């Protein structure tokens, strides 16, 4: 008992993940009896039986109500007091440790970077976006710590020893190769300062920023010996190791979750249903979008199933076409990526060659040419690849993974291409050795194994390139915020034309943004050896980016419509983006979803108005009817001839309509025209890929057989039969008509009819010539008939309409779950009570009547 108590005390701290995982096996056995204590009074006896084992469980993690927990707690406290007789030091210690822990936690929370902002972001935009910012914070801290490392071991000693002016270490290598004096001479124009700052040349080049500035200083005293080159090397190695460890630790967390949860895609629907809802969502907009998002995910799954079904039923010819198309598109995509690489290589070569010839702004442009080409390529190629994806027709999840894979390859390999080209330039394309043998004339690279005349310190050059890439990335980020995202939002918000509606507000695409961060970090890792201050620059850069992204997130973005399913490709992300995110969201522009919400709201309002109008009209009709009857009764009592009046009032119900046919036909034609127009528009949108419907194609809107349950099929069969039954009358009619048509008597009649008609025409002509008195009466009769028919038809149509609308209304009403009686199995007394109440009310009604 005592040992159990002790364990309970030490376990009082906050549960870590591992602990909870370890506990799970035990608790899953135990939680089922606990769960069943919906009526808790019975279970408390059981709990007492368990006694000691139950004490091990955290009181706070038991699913009891607070009152129960507190009584239990009081009991425990009494036991504790009895056991330790007036508070032993162990009990006190555990208590203090716990308090200390909670204090530390609060303090850490207070000091943790951007804790409040992150919480706010998570609350407003969900976990996916929040994880991006968590990653950003991680990178900031990582970069800052690595800067401290480098600063402490290399930078500060270097500064100190330089000021002291200590001896140089022994040189190895040829004298010529060690010449390096990049300091600018003479006066410089004032704007050159900025140019140098941006391109890392001039005064920047020979500073602590770059490799070339660090001397081969070695301090050897009696007490201390410090070798700067060695320190430099070791710090760099340690820096990489440190980053690797940090990432592995971070990755391990995600991987552990992935492994323990299986990370499989087996239970997909149930997972969406039960764990899809983010309880942390705040705000109606976010909730709306989240609901839409879940709807969309379910639809995607259904669609994927449908596609699979469709793919299985494809003919060979179709398959061949599809696969050949996919292969073709694959090559097109590869071609695009390779073209980008080629462009990067060319730009790098060109800029390296041109760089010494020009001055001023043009030089800056040439300096930045590789960065510009890389950024442009990374922007354009994914856009084109998205277009290719429309043709490829992969399943939605495969499309997303493919797009991400292409983007990752593009980003990281373009960096590699840049380095490779640079390396080629530095080492004269790597053929120094051959040239030495085959040709007698010496080249630039012969002396020092690299192009010394063009690159007096090639390490600094590489560092400069990385510095420029980092800086350019930051500038592009800020420029996009100021020049693209803010104007876009203003245009979309204030200018409601079709184009701006189509463009819509920006969505925060987590994967692409994470990719940007990974790219930036890779640049820093590449350049850290040659530009020791790069981690510091990157820290500042990421801090700025954090605020930029936060501003743009809250001002310009809307929450994601489409969430990317991360679990399907957890291990893909492990490789690609180090699996920093427990989950990611992926956004594809989907305007019609937003439009649909709006449309549905409008429709609901319209329906309401319609219902109101109908009620008003019904009231009005009832009133007129009542008044009319009253008036008629008054008239009849007055003894006025009622018959004529009745007829007149019947006729006056219908006001004179000169063109009844035209009127109705116009209306109908308009409707048809509208529908045609809509179809045409839809078709066009579908063709250009703007509209991608998830359901079946229009025109084939019948639900496929596999979606029907057996009950529905039964129903449909019945309906068919009914329809057949209805058509039986028609069939008879048709039959009779057929028989009539086959009757020889008809021919005779027809012949007679022709003859008669001819006769009649003649007569008519004759009559017309004489007078036009007889025709008018027949026209009048026809009109009366027609009017009557029309009235009849209208009445019938109205009846059908009323019936339908009434029916729909009834279907919408749903019983509130709280109205329902309690399940009698667990709350018999409550259920009975309700029933009794119902009965009583019923009896009351009877009594009243």
């Amino acid at each position, binding site marked *: 008992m005592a040992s159990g108590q002790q364990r309970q005390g030490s376990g009082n701290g906050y*549960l870590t993940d591992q602990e909870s995982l370890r506990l799970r096996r035990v608790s*899953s056995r135990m939680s089922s009896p606990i769960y069943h204590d919906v009526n808790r009074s019975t279970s408390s006896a059981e709990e007492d039986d368990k006694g000691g084992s139950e004490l091990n469980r955290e009181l706070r993690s038991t699913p009891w*109500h607070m009152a129960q927990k507190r009584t239990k707690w009081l009991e425990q406290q009494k036991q504790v007091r009895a056991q330790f007789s007036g508070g032993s030091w162990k009990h006190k210690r555990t208590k203090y440790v716990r308090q200390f822990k909670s204090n530390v936690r609060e303090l850490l929370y207070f000091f943790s970077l951007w804790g409040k902002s992150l919480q706010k972001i998570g609350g407003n935009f969900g976990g996916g976006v929040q994880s991006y910012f968590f990653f950003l914070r991680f990178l900031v801290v990582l970069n800052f710590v690595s800067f401290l490392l480098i600063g402490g071991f290399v930078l500060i000693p270097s500064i100190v020893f330089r000021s002291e002016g200590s001896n140089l270490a022994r040189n190895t290598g040829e004298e010529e190769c060690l010449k390096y004096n990049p300091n600018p001479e003479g006066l410089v124009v004032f704007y050159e300062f900025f140019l140098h700052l941006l391109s890392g040349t001039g005064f920047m080049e020979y500073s602590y920023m770059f490799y070339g500035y660090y001397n081969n200083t070695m301090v050897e005293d009696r007490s201390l010996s410090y070798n700067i080159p060695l320190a430099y090397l070791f710090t760099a190695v340690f820096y990489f190791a440190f980053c690797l460890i940090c990432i592995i630790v971070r990755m391990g967390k995600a991987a552990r979750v992935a492994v323990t949860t299986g990370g499989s895609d087996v239970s*997909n*629907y149930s997972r969406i249903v039960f*764990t899809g809802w983010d309880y942390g969502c705040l705000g109606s907009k976010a*909730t709306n979008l989240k609901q839409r998002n879940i709807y969309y995910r379910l639809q995607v799954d259904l669609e994927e199933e449908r596609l699979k079904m469709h793919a299985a039923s494809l003919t060979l010819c179709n398959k061949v076409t599809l696969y050949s198309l996919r292969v073709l598109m694959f090559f097109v995509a590869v071609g695009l990526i390779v073209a980008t690489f080629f462009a990067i290589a060319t730009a790098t070569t060109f800029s390296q060659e041109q760089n010494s010839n020009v001055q001023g702004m043009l030089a800056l442009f040439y300096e930045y040419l590789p960065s510009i080409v890389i950024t442009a390529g990374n922007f354009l190629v994914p856009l084109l690849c998205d277009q290719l994806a429309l043709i490829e027709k992969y399943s939605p999840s495969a499309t997303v993974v493919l797009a991400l894979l292409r983007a990752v390859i593009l980003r990281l390999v373009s960096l590699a291409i840049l380095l490779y080209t640079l390396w080629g330039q530095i080492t004269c394309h790597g053929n120094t050795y051959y040239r030495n043998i085959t040709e007698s004339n010496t080249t630039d690279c012969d002396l020092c194994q690299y192009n010394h005349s063009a690159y007096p310190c090639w390490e600094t050059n590489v560092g400069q390139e990385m510095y420029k890439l980092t800086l350019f990335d930051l500038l592009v980020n800020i420029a996009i915020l100021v020049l693209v995202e803010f104007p876009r939002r203003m245009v979309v918000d204030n200018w409601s034309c079709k184009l701006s509606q189509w463009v819509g507000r920006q969505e925060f695409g987590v994967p692409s943004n994470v990719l940007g961060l990974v790219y930036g970090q890779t640049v820093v890792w590449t350049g850290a050896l040659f530009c020791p201050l790069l981690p510091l620059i990157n820290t500042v850069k990421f801090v700025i980016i954090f605020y930029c992204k936060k501003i743009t997130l809250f001002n310009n973005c809307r929450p994601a419509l489409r969430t990317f399913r991360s679990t399907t490709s957890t291990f893909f992300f492990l490789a690609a983006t180090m699996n920093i995110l427990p989950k990611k969201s992926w956004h594809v522009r989907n305007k019609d979803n937003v439009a649909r919400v709006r449309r549905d709201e409008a429709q609901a309002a319209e329906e309401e108005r319609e219902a109101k109008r109908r009620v008003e009209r019904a009231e009005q009709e009832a009133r007129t009817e009542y008044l009319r009857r009253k008036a008629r009764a008054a008239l009849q009592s007055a003894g006025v001839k009622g018959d004529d009046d009745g007829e007149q009032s019947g006729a006056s119900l219908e006001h004179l309509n000169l063109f009844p046919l035209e009127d109705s036909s116009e209306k109908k034609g308009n409707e048809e025209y509208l529908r045609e127009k809509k179809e045409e528009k839809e078709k066009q949108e579908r063709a250009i890929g703007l509209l991608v419907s998830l359901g079946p194609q229009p025109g084939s809107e019948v639900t496929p057989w596999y979606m029907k349950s057996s009950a529905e099929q039964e129903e449909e069969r019945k309906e068919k039969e009914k329809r057949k039954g209805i058509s039986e009358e028609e069939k008879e009619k048709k039959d009779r008509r057929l028989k009539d048509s086959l009757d020889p008597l008809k021919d005779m009649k027809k012949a007679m009819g022709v003859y008669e008609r001819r006769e009649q025409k003649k007569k008519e002509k004759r009559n017309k010539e004489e007078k036009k008195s007889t025709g008018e009466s027949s026209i009048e009769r026809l009109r009366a008939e027609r009017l009557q028919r029309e009235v009849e038809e209208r009445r019938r149509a109205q009846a059908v309409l009323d019936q339908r609308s009434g029916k729909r209304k009834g279907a919408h009403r749903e019983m509130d779950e709280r109205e329902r009686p309690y399940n009698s199995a667990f709350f018999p007394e409550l259920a009975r009570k309700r029933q009794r109440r119902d009965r009583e009310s019923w009896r009351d009604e009877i009594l009243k009547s």
Partner: protein
Amino acid sequence: MGNKQTTFTEEQLEAYQDCTYFTRKEILRLHGRYRELAPHLVPLDYTNNPDIRVPLSLIVTMPELKENPFKDRIVETFSEDGQGNMSFNDFVDMFSALCETSPRELKTIYAFKIYDYNRDNFICKEDLRKTLNKLTKGELTPEELTLVCDKAIEEADLDADNKLSFADFENMISKAPDFLSNFHIRI
């Protein structure tokens, strides 16, 4: 806060701390939030454990719950009387179970209770249908709804009784990585 007037005794605070995942400060803050809902009803002084219940209609006006489609179910589940009238104890309980540090199994139990609309200790198709309707605002067509319900039950149902028992539910949840981060109200 404590200087002006004591809201809780030391012992009460300690009990709350041991029974929930909150610190002392957070409990006081929660009391403030609770009191905000019905200032005329809830006293500042809680030292003698007054038996006061705030009705469901007031609880769901909290911004943390307002937009949640399951707000009524959450409040009903955590209230002791099952009708949604919450005492402060229930209130603290609710946010403790839904906070970040509470373990998976506790959350699973409460999630199961929330999704079990008719309280028969099984999640049947009717429960699922309601959940789905709330999740998608009734956008799914009846056929789709039926299909999704069938699929979801088929996936998670281990004993093939066409409804989910708690064991099925727990097994399914244990495979869902997003559950912990999603079943979480930040207060």
